[in-house]
């Protein structure tokens, strides 16, 4: 029965989160599902991973995206394609007012508060800030999974801890 459910689910759009991967030509998407344990009558989390075709590289690590299965498998691994990015990671918009939010507060409110106290030049400016990804591979190592360092290579891999 579980197999049937999984097969029918493949035809629909799926909502998942992009996770770090070493694959360069595909995005790895984690789809969270709840599975019923019939003995305990309780739902348990069950993750499924899909490798998705993403030629334009629209989704980055952490984004919530919609994916759909391809009519034919692209490779042995790549079975789905990324339809669209629903929620970009760390760039949240309030759905009711349409304003940008950081945690529980509006960004403009925080700006207003800083202005009242006397804004300094060292303040972070959202308008001047470049798009996400300019530190990727320089100081921000989150696009690939990190692992325990197991050997001394000639070249030091920053993803080895």
């Amino acid at each position: 029965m579980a197999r049937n459910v999984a097969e029918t689910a493949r035809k629909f759009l799926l909502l998942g989160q992009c996770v770090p991967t070493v694959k360069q030509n595909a995005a790895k998407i984690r789809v969270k599902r709840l599975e019923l344990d019939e003995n305990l009558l309780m739902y348990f989390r069950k993750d499924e991973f899909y490798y998705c075709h993403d030629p334009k590289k629209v989704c980055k690590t952490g984004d919530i995206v919609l994916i759909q299965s391809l009519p034919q498998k692209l490779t042995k691994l790549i079975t789905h394609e990324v339809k669209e990015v629903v929620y970009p990671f760390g760039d949240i918009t309030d759905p009711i007012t349409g304003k940008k939010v950081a945690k529980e507060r509006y960004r403009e409110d925080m700006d207003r508060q800083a202005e009242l106290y006397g804004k300094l030049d060292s303040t972070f400016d959202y308008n001047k800030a470049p798009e996400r990804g300019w530190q990727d591979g320089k100081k921000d190592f989150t696009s690939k999974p990190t692992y325990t360092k197991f050997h001394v290579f000639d070249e030091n891999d920053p993803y080895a801890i």
Partner: protein
Amino acid sequence: MLRRLACTVVQSRGIKHTVNVKWVRPDYVPAYKPEKSGDLEGLPPIPESAIGKDYSLSEEIKDASESVKKIFSVAHLGRKEYNRLVKEELIDRVKRHQYDHSTAETKIAFLTGQIRYLQDTMDKFPRNKKMKQLVQEKIDRRKKLLKYLRQYDYKKFEWLLEKLNIEYKGHPESFHKLSRMESLRKLTEMHCDDIRNKKLADYRNLLESQQGPYLQQKLDALKLIRSEQIELKLPITVTEQDITKVQQQFDDWKIKDDIKQKAMKKKKNIVLEI
């Protein structure tokens, strides 16, 4: 008796490895070290003659004599005052307004200042266990705050990394003790991949080198067929387009081959020089 003999004769441990990979165990690096904590920068350059944080605000110190200034300098007041200046320097890089002490960026800057001067003291007294624990706690706390900041404000997170000169690495899937077996397995896998890729590349090279002569032959044959068909007034099956297409392919191959030959020559020269 027999069993004992069998045990000594048949070795179960230390079976010789047939794959020639050499494993070098990475050295132990204490967690407080900058390369582990992700600090790309040491203490900020604060001179020893800098005046303590509170005293620098007073009017009298500005036109005081040298000896008075020396008494109120960081060198004389002690390490604690110096550390206060370190924290202030880092917070000044990111704070929003004058009274900003509780936002995420100032908290992270404050912790970074603490971590940097504690790392400096840890280098002097590496056996200080209490301090080692303290640095570890601060580093973990900062990492946690950075993780949260990344989740709710990615742009600010990246800006903060640049400003404070910190590296951020994601959590690995599992933290575990490194074992010889696991390392050797991974190395062997890499070795096998290398062999396979090399064989594939060699085979590809071989096929590509045969492409040129074949295209040349094809071009000649097509031209011959076309000319003979025209001569004998037979229905023409080979069009001009076919011939130009093959010609184009041949030209492309020539350019590619040239680049390859040049690369090969360069490699040979480098080997000869060495």
